[in-house]
């Protein structure tokens, strides 16, 4: 690597708001995350993409201090946010940080909202912590308006089960941006939304990001969304990040065989009339990880050595970091 490039890299690093290194998390006897590496620059948007069950939601939970609630603990690695080490955070520290500096839009909007409280009360409870009482109602309506909720006034009086899937999702987003966080974690924020609203929400999040210099991590399976709104991308497979880099780079020149297969499986990648391409076999779950590359049992490029060494996320010249022993050969074919 040439000297100016290294300097660039250092600068990019020092401006990172969030830096996760080699994070491992265990539940009971099994590692559920092992080798998660990612970083989010100030004001940037990272797309967290990957196999279902690969640990995207658990990664978000780790970043917001919600691991203890499910009996999970960090075994190894570091999480640095705005100069602070989050792994050593205690409950008290989290209470101060959560919602104000890092906010979370959970994956299932029905479980994320309190079923026995109206949307208005839930918003009010959070707003009250940050804004004067006299502004609570106006701010609640304003927030619902921002997320393009139809009939904001009336929605305040509704319970979660009375809303459609997409309306619940918007209520969750409104709740998360109350505290004007520095980092917003959005776990599948637009899955239940039709494309017009999805587009509106993503534009809203982008403009919020620009106006407040907020950084964002979006977990999503929608590669179209990833392409339009994210700057960077991290791909996960079986508990670790296996490829990271600038979004355009990774999508146009994937270096890991899993990323390639994922892109080939999209309906839009199919040749007219053909069946969708799938990946044979299944990913190993926690507790089923063998030595070596966790993608090896399904990988068309596998060699003997792949079963021996766990590939580390390594950058190659003219490429971005990927965790595959054969990436240099593959990137040129």
């Amino acid at each position, binding site marked *: 690597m040439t000297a100016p490039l290294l300097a660039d890299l250092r600068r990019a690093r020092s401006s990172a708001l969030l830096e996760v290194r080699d994070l491992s998390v265990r539940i009971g006897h*099994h590692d559920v995350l092992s080798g998660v590496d990612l970083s989010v620059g100030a004001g940037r948007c990272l797309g967290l993409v*990957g*196999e*279902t*069950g690969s640990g*995207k*939601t658990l990664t978000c939970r780790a970043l917001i201090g919600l691991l203890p609630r*499910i009996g999970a603990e960090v075994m190894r690695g570091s999480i640095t946010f705005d100069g602070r080490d989050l792994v050593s955070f205690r409950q008290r520290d989290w209470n101060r940080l959560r919602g104000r500096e890092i906010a979370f839009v959970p*994956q*299932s*909007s*029905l*479980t994320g909202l309190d079923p026995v409280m109206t949307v208005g009360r839930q918003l009010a409870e959070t707003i009250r912590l940050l804004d004067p009482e006299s502004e609570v109602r106006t701010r609640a309506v304003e927030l619902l308006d921002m997320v393009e909720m*139809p009939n904001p006034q*009336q929605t305040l009086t509704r319970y979660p089960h*009375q*809303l*459609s*899937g*997409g*309306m619940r999702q918007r209520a969750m987003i409104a709740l998360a941006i109350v505290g004007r966080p520095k980092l917003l974690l959005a776990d*599948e924020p637009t*899955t*239940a*939304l*039709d*494309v*017009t*609203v*999805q*587009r509106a929400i993503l534009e809203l999040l982008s403009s919020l990001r620009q106006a407040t210099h907020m950084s964002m991590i979006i977990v999503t*399976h*929608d*590669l*179209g*969304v990833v*392409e*339009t709104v994210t700057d960077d991308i991290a791909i996960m497979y079986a508990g670790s990040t296996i490829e990271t880099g600038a979004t355009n780079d990774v*999508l*146009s*020149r994937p270096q890991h065989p899993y990323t390639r297969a*994922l*892109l080939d*499986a*999209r*309906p*839009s*990648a*199919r040749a007219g009339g053909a*069946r*969708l*391409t*799938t*990946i044979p076999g*299944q990913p*190993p*779950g*926690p*507790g*089923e990880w063998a030595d070596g590359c966790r993608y090896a049992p399904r990988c068309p490029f596998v060699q003997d050595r792949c079963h021996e060494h766990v590939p580390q996320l390594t950058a190659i010249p003219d490429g971005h970091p990927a965790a595959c022993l054969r990436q240099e050969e593959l990137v040129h074919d």
Partner: protein
Amino acid sequence: MTEPLLSARGASVSYSGSPEPALRGADLDVFAGAAIGIVGESGSGKTTLGRALVGAVPLTSGEIRVGGRPWSAVRRGNPVRRSVQMIFQDPYASLNPMLTAHETVAEVCRTWDGLSRSAASHRAVELLQEVGLSGHTISRRPKQLSGGQCQRVGIARALACNPGVLVADEPTSALDASVQAQVLNLLLDLRESRGLALVLISHDLSVIEYLTTEALVMYRGCVVERGSTDMLLKQPRHPYTRALVDSIPGSQRSPQLVRNAVDPAAGCVFAARCPDMMPDCLANQPPLTGTAGGAHACLHPLGELKLPTPIPLRTVVSSA
């Protein structure tokens, strides 16, 4: 002519306490082997229509017949109930939190198929395998599963009933592209091998394009356009459908949605957001007009709307 498995006429639903109906006069026939897509605005009544089709929500007017009989006349234990299944939109909320993935599916095999305990257990493992779940994962409870794992438990549970009609409400929204491909191919196989009729609710138009042959577009409780999926996506006619198609990430046209200062309760349901609104639009909701091949509910006669030139759908990722 063969009878439809399900048929809706003027199906309308109003929830108590809601100012406007969630579903207004939907007509739909579901024949064996059909593949019907439902798309539309969030909150437009897609889930409500789906739930009405499976008899899970009472109609305020109109009728839905299953095997020739209205739902209200179908008793609890009637086998016709199991022949119409739904995959619910919220994967967590629709599962029993106390049961493991395996128990959830095995229970259905036991009660509906009258299988012995061990046969049901075996069948459940098979079904879960088909949706890509195996190993330790299937002995976890919903809270211990990821979003996409829960979603597939819901799919396996619905398939365990061996349904004739499957209403799938956003069935792959939580799945990555490769598992989504596996599930969509499975549904397509079932349709081809057993004539399973699919009603697929999805906001992902590329999924709708892949799986369905005809589609409905909904807006504020109304079906505003229907037709062959191909035509609908290539040449959307209703102004809302056009906005929808143009909102696909990566689309070359930007969606046309405006805010007209009109009473949203008057006239056409889309008047307040429509770029082509005219004063006449505020009189009544235009009826669906057209042929069996395609119809839309807009006052502009076909041909007078500036129809966009068709663009290929496959523009999502502009890469290799």
